[in-house]
């Protein structure tokens, strides 16, 4: 997994609540058996004027000029500023894959849906929860300032604004550790293989009907 330590990037706004995973990446693109290439279909229904299809050359499609990510001032943005309950809906990891593939490294919102939030960490994408009032303020500043950029310091758990002021955020110690070091969850868990075997041995005695079922 890609490490996340310190990131400075320009910010793009997604100014609506309850952005769902169907909006982030529509279902027709979930047919891919690959893990990459979803960036060109991020927010597909908002971003293009036509209905997107898998394996299409996105550069030939008509862009929606009104959609925020198509506006020149937000080109190259790597931090997404969003509203509450971002990522609600399905468990499709294609949503963080699309955001990451597009170029986003962090998302700031007042709240995230649980599964989406969890999926982000598996892909080196940092979701940051800030108070709604703070997010409101960031939206205002972003609107007012072309090229508005934020620096995110995961080690210190702070978002640094252009004026040098800092906003603290909280994050689980385990998730932080994994992101900072780009660690593979499976490798970590397999270090506890003895614990898993011991659990299974106990469980086989207590609830034998849970084993050897579909075989």
């Amino acid at each position, binding site marked *: 997994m890609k490490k996340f330590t310190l990131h400075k990037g320009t910010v793009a706004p997604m100014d609506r609540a309850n952005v769902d995973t169907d909006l982030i990446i529509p279902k027709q693109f979930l*047919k891919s058996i*690959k893990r990459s290439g979803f960036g060109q279909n991020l927010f597909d229904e908002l971003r293009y004027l036509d*209905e997107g299809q898998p394996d299409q050359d996105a550069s030939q499609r008509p862009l929606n000029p009104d959609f925020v990510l198509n506006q020149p001032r937000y080109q190259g943005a790597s931090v997404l500023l969003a509203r509450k309950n971002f990522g609600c*809906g*399905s*468990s499709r990891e294609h949503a963080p894959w699309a955001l990451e593939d597009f170029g986003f490294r962090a998302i700031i919102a007042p709240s995230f849906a*649980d599964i989406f939030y969890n999926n982000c960490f598996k892909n080196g994408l940092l979701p940051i929860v800030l108070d709604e009032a703070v997010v409101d303020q960031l939206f205002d500043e972003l609107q007012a300032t072309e090229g508005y950029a934020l620096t995110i310091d995961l080690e210190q758990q702070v978002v640094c604004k252009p004026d040098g002021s800092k906003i603290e955020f909280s994050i689980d110690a385990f998730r932080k550790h994994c992101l900072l070091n780009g660690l593979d969850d*499976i490798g970590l*868990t397999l270090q506890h293989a003895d614990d898993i075997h011991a659990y299974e041995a106990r469980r086989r005695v207590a*609830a034998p009907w849970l084993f050897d079922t579909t075989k």
Partner: protein
Amino acid sequence: MAGKTLYDKLWQDHLVRQNDDGSALIYIDRHLLHEVTSPQAFEGLRLANRKPWRIDANLATPDHNVPTTDRSSGVQGIVDPVSRIQVQTLDDNCASFGITEFKMNDLRQGIVHVIGPEQGATLPGMTVVCGDSHTSTHGAFATLAHGIGTSEVEHVLATQCLITKKMNNMLVRIDGELGTGVTAKDVILHVIGVIGTAGGTGYAIEFGGTAMRSISMEGRMTICNMAIEAGARVGLVACDQVTVDYVKGRPYSPKGEDWDRAVEAWKDLVSDADAQFDAVVEINAADIEPQVTWGTSPEMVTGISGKVPNPAAETDAVKREGYSRALQYMGLQADQDITAIQLDRVFIGSCTNSRIEDLREAAAVVKGHKVASTLKQALVVPGSGLVKAQAEAEGLDKIFIEAGVEWREPGCSMCLAMNPDKLGAGEHCASTSNRNFEGRQGFGGRTHLVSPAMAAAAAIAGHFVDVREFVKH
């Protein structure tokens, strides 16, 4: 010391290791797989040269991409090449790793959340995960069940565990009696309307109260299925005799002495009387009328006697903006009667409402009627091959076909339109599925979530009607 909630007990029973940093390793008893969220996980296993930890904990079926029309040509008959490759990839992965799969033309194939319980692969007291957010469905069996992403699918395959963190406990207590014509679907839509789509974020919701005890397993599954639409990854219902009766005699259910031991153990799968919940929501069952969603989020819902809301009446700016955008997308007017919404298509199916009881409810309404001539299509998609066979044995297929409703092969179908069943732009659909997001059922499609009985009545009338009045006449 306060008693434990059902969630606390399930958590404790599956805890392999509690780490100092607050994360924990929990054991997964059952892993369900389908074609959409698993290919990258199998690929990850291969790249790292890893093997599944415990083959017999896994069960797979293709459901999202499968056609619901003629399947006599098998996987090669799937017209969309991208869909075909995805279904074929699941078959190949299951064959190469030795995982049991109910393939597309197996009678037992169906929507993964229908077949788990149907086969007894979902049992009380288990942990069940699947790369699908509607895995919350299985919580109806007092099972700790939730959706996971593809990285976690790979993690569960490789380790039989998940790294996770304990959720908070919420009790949604539904007391009293449901009115005639009011179903489990109306209950959960009403609950989402009350607590909102983020109301359950961070919580495991237990649905309790006197009304829950009289709701069937099918109804409990419908309710837990949509816990995720209230933001909660986990929905739960305590185990009782209704649960035990449903599980008994299913192919993967325990037998003989194991059965007796299991039933004894399952008696503890209830929240203790003195258990403390972090949040409690009280709902009076008698307050619930048949529900219809009018917007693009499941919380945008009202009763059949209601009206489309007026955004101007909303004080919260973000909400007002959301309402306006939803009305524009849905092509609806503020203050319009719900019954005035004209429909183009009706879809009865999905992991929310495609079980035998759902089909019986819908058939009872359409029996002896014809689908409105203004409708482009009404279709019923059973949740599994076995549900389909059962319905046909009861003659339900004939009732639907005589009414002008299409009778299809099992799969997810128009719930998310990954197969050819989809809405055209601007079309309104009365759907028994779970999400009314923009474009969910097809590019530009407009979804209204309802119960099977309400969908059936709407199919006959061509617009929404109160199924309670409809049945009287």
